[in-house]
């Protein structure tokens, strides 16, 4: 009886987290390069129930999970977002696998948001001012004139190649930590490798891989699941109430 109340409660807590994660996905629906977080719930390790009658071998009744837990193996969905034409030459998008490498004061970070700009000293930087890394370090664009980025990431200014964007991939991107500011960080022991399966598109931005219809449906789902868990608590409470108040009266 009491056991059921705690099981339902663990569901309530997790569905609240689920709703928060959905709200964050929705708030970032227009954030370039944003990758949505996915949150799913599963039953925790099951416990076996036995019936004990004195003088007999305990009889196996069944298995029962006592609480629910998040599914650990899948938290961020790194699927491709749709590319939107902006016409701004400083907007770069990756189609396919990989991340841009950004040099932050705390070491390298990785991003899918290619909305960059040129700093006062001519380097290609993110909107926060962190330099975007080429294969030979910072990318310096010569003064004036236009620059062209081809599909392989080669940067040309005035017909001359001035650098090549460094695009890296991870065997398991799930291990990346979100830093905020459109950046990901690789925890210790996770090393990037050179990506190959990508094309770079200049004048395009990758939008969040979040779809408004899906967001709506997931939100309704989270709300109803929450409601259901609440119902379970109420039902347990009523049963318990009957046990406490009405059963003694019958006797």
């Amino acid at each position, binding site marked *: 009886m009491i056991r059921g109340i705690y099981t339902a409660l663990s569901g309530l807590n997790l569905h609240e987290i689920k709703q928060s994660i959905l709200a*964050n996905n929705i*708030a970032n629906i227009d954030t370039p390069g944003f990758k949505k977080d996915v949150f799913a719930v599963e039953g925790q390790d099951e416990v076996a129930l036995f019936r004990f009658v004195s003088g007999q071998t305990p009889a196996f009744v069944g298995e029962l999970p006592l609480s629910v837990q998040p599914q650990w193996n899948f938290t961020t969905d790194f699927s491709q977002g749709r590319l939107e034409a902006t016409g701004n030459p400083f907007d770069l998008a990756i189609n396919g696998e990989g991340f841009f490498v950004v040099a932050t004061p705390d070491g390298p970070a990785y991003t899918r948001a290619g909305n960059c700009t040129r700093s*006062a000293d001519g380097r290609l930087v993110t909107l926060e001012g962190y330099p975007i890394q080429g294969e030979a370090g910072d990318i310096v664009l010569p003064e004036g004139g236009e620059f062209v980025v081809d599909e392989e990431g080669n940067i040309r200014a005035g017909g001359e190649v001035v650098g090549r964007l460094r695009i890296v991939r991870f065997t398991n991107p799930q*291990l990346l930590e979100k830093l905020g500011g459109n950046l990901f960080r690789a925890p210790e022991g996770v090393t990037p490798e050179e990506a190959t399966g990508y094309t770079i598109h200049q004048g395009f931005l990758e939008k969040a891989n979040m779809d408004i219809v899906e967001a709506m449906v997931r939100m309704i789902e989270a709300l109803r699941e929450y409601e259901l868990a609440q119902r379970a608590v109420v039902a347990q409470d009523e049963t318990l109430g009957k046990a406490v108040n009405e059963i003694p009266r019958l006797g």
Partner: protein
Amino acid sequence: MIRALWTAATGMQAKQLDLDVIANNLANVNTTGFKKSRVDFQDLMYQVIRFKGTPTSPETQVPSGIEVGLGVRPAAIQKIFSQGDIYETGNPLDLVIEGDGFFQILLPDGTVAYTRDGAFKLDAQGRMVTSDGFPLEPPITIPQGAESITIAQDGTVTVKMPGETEPQEVGVIELARFINPAGLLSIGRNLYVATAASGEPQVGTPGLEGFGTLAQGFLETSNVQIVEEMVRMISAQRAYEINAKAITTADEMMSITNNMKR
């Protein structure tokens, strides 16, 4: 629950800002030399509920943890300096820069501002001034009684005086250019001033070293595309709506919690 409420609120604020910028772009759709702006968004910080790599047993660890994002924030509102459409006016003092560069304007406080708006006029002293009366830098003075004014592609200003056969040169219009024009500060009246982010201006002759050329009798309209702004407005409105729905949902969940105990 409270988390979802505030997260969705940052989403609504962001969309409000987006709409503010779109409204300003649309309000300036016919402003000479206006450059459209765009808001760029970033995800806010993350609250880590369970760290990635937390050991679950001596041999195993959590492969991917739980990070709850706390919303969105605007990272920058940047000007897009693409070329606007060019239209003919026939007015000899209307100038357009075809390509890179800004006109330099001397403000009353002695600082130099920069503009793409080439709708110049003459003041009482014959100086070429903006619509607000701020003179071009270096100053160009048209002598009184000039019959015609010619401004060449390279910025040379010549006038023909009555009774003279040879045109007379009165000055050269110079252009300024920035390594990062998106770093310029807009001060209204179609003017920009230099900042640390834009870098120092490089001054040069139109048509040389990558500077744009001048065309007389034309003006540059804004680079705002109405269709694009309309689409952005629709998308901003719908995103605003779904963020509001997220708030309603969080509210409903709180109400469900409140009804748990009767």
